[in-house]
């Protein structure tokens, strides 16, 4: 029983991480039809920003997380303005440009700080464990789950209650129609990119907490599971991404524990294949937010 509780908490923590990467990815894809291969790089930027502010500058942990998130947001806005927007009429080239950025940024990080994993600053309050129903669970799992919950709530409020959220939701449904109504969808693009970048960078900062270290390829390896989550959740749907993240995180943890290590990663892909065979066009929800 204790093991099950620990696995659930860890799986939810991992799922929270996936959600932080996948929600921005899903929104960007839903609105712009851009599969952002640089999203993992934004995560790495956030992770290294936090690490740098926390260990090299000596900021407090939460300030460092704020700094890393800000750096990731700025990077995302620059990416959208400088590379995505000029290719507005060429959706496939937009994807290819993000592939290039996704190769270049981790390489740059590697050049500056080396290929080895860097130990991540853990504040004392988050380094410990708590007893929960007899199981000993690391505190940082709850931080991740809490952060993902807040992000989900925030995104839903933003999408559901604000004018910009309305534009974004309408844009995901039918971009041409929104443009025809005289609304500047491009401003919504930049906004969604900034939001996605911020959430990915936050995910990067918290992934350092989860894994205890950061390395340049971390973003890219998380990105691939985020892709799985986005497909499973129904592309463009934030709630779908949340449900799929939890499913993927739990399946991975349980399969890794109860079968051979590594089979968890494979079982996620099998899950995806089964879902595609059963519901090829809609994913889990097939609806937006």
């Amino acid at each position, binding site marked *: 029983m204790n093991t099950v509780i620990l696995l659930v908490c860890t799986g939810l923590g991992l799922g929270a991480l996936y959600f932080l990467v996948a929600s921005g990815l899903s929104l960007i894809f839903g609105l712009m039809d851009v*599969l952002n291969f640089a999203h993992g790089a934004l995560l790495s930027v956030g992770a290294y920003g936090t690490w740098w502010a926390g260990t090299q500058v000596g900021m407090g942990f939460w300030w460092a997380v704020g700094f890393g998130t800000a750096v990731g947001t700025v990077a995302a806005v620059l990416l959208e303005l400088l590379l995505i927007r000029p290719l507005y009429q060429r959706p496939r080239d937009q994807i290819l440009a993000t*592939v*290039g*950025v996704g*190769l*270049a940024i981790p390489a740059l990080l590697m050049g500056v700080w080396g290929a080895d994993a860097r130990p991540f600053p853990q504040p004392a309050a988050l380094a410990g464990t708590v007893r929960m129903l007899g199981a000993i669970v690391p505190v940082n799992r709850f931080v991740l789950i809490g952060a993902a919950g807040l992000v989900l709530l925030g995104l839903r409020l933003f999408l559901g209650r604000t004018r910009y959220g309305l534009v974004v939701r309408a844009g995901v449904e039918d971009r041409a129609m929104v443009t025809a109504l005289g609304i500047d969808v491009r401003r919504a693009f930049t906004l969604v990119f900034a939001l996605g970048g911020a959430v990915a960078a936050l995910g990067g900062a918290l992934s350092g907490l989860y894994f205890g270290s950061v390395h340049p390829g971390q973003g890219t390896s998380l990105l691939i599971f985020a892709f799985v989550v986005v497909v499973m959740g129904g592309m463009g749907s934030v709630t779908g991404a949340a449900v799929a993240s939890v499913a993927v995180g739990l399946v991975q943890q349980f399969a890794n524990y109860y079968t051979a290590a590594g089979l968890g990663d494979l079982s996620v*892909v099998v899950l995806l294949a089964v879902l*595609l065979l059963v519901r090829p066009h809609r994913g889990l929800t097939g609806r937006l937010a």
Partner: protein
Amino acid sequence: MPRTGESFAESSTGRRRALRWWPIALLILLLVAPYSALPIPGVLDGPLGSPGSLQLIALCLVYGALASGYDLLLGRTGLLSFGHALYFATGLYVTDLAMLELRLPFAAAALCGVAGSALLALLLGSVSLRVTGIGFSMVTLAFAQAGSILVQRNPAGLTGGEEGRAAPADRLPSALVGIENTPNLYWIALAYLVLTITVIHWAARSPVGRVWTGIRENERRVEVLGLRPYGFKLLAFVLASGLAGAGGVVYLLLTGGATPQAASSDTTLSLLVMVVLGGSGSRWGPLLGGVLYTWASHRLGDLANSTAVADLPAVLRVPLSQPLFLLGSLFVAVVYLLPGGLAGLPARLRGRVRRVARSLTDAAADARTRT
């Protein structure tokens, strides 16, 4: 007196007829390259026929062929697969393992490798093609990632994990082992390239190839014509993957072993970069892109380790010492500045020259009417 359109067209068809033979001429040059001791400073380290140079050229040819095969999906059928490395790695690993574990002779093992790639592609392709567009890209990526993880986890000690496994020298024909036999490996790589190009061009000109083009342009319209795109797409997927598997076999011979890097998503992304760099959907573009990319990534490694770079200030040294940074940036630049890739460059230049010429004649005519 301006040249009449007729004589201009005549001289240009004559030139075109002569130009049609350049692939044959190039092929003959490539065939005799091992006999040549021509030094090409800056491009190759040693003379042309030296084992080191032949090895590098052979790698360039293999990647040129792999990129051309990948473009069967991307440029000709419009399928953006992010999992092509999986089929390349399947050919590589299955061939190696069939020799190591089943003690099969090389030829039989190579057949297993190619067949394994095609079968896996049939299985996974039939699942991933159930989603279209970007969903397909993500699903292929997920499958390829699963393959990559599987290879790295070293199940039952088969794949050798991070280390990979060396090809057994005693199972290979003796003409394919050892540095003095590099020319033979080079010729095999060349043969693989010729095979790939022939198959692709033949397939693209066949009726099936026309359906592929139709799917690329507008899948809905193909459906309206009463054809099911699914089967045609699956055929392209299996064919491209089988060719990639054969590439894995040649790669195994060239590098003497199977390593997990072959299965990584970086390999697929490199193929994508090659195709876009050279010009997706064009006849020779992917080949050119593959050759240039492979050559550049080897030379960039040398550049990164050179003293000229080491002496630079850190702001320049750090980015320059990362080949992937340079290639990634180059890729963005090509996508942004050179749509159509290198293969599209002549047409773009011609278009620009024509525009300038037209504006000049317009200006001249304008000036004449005024006087």
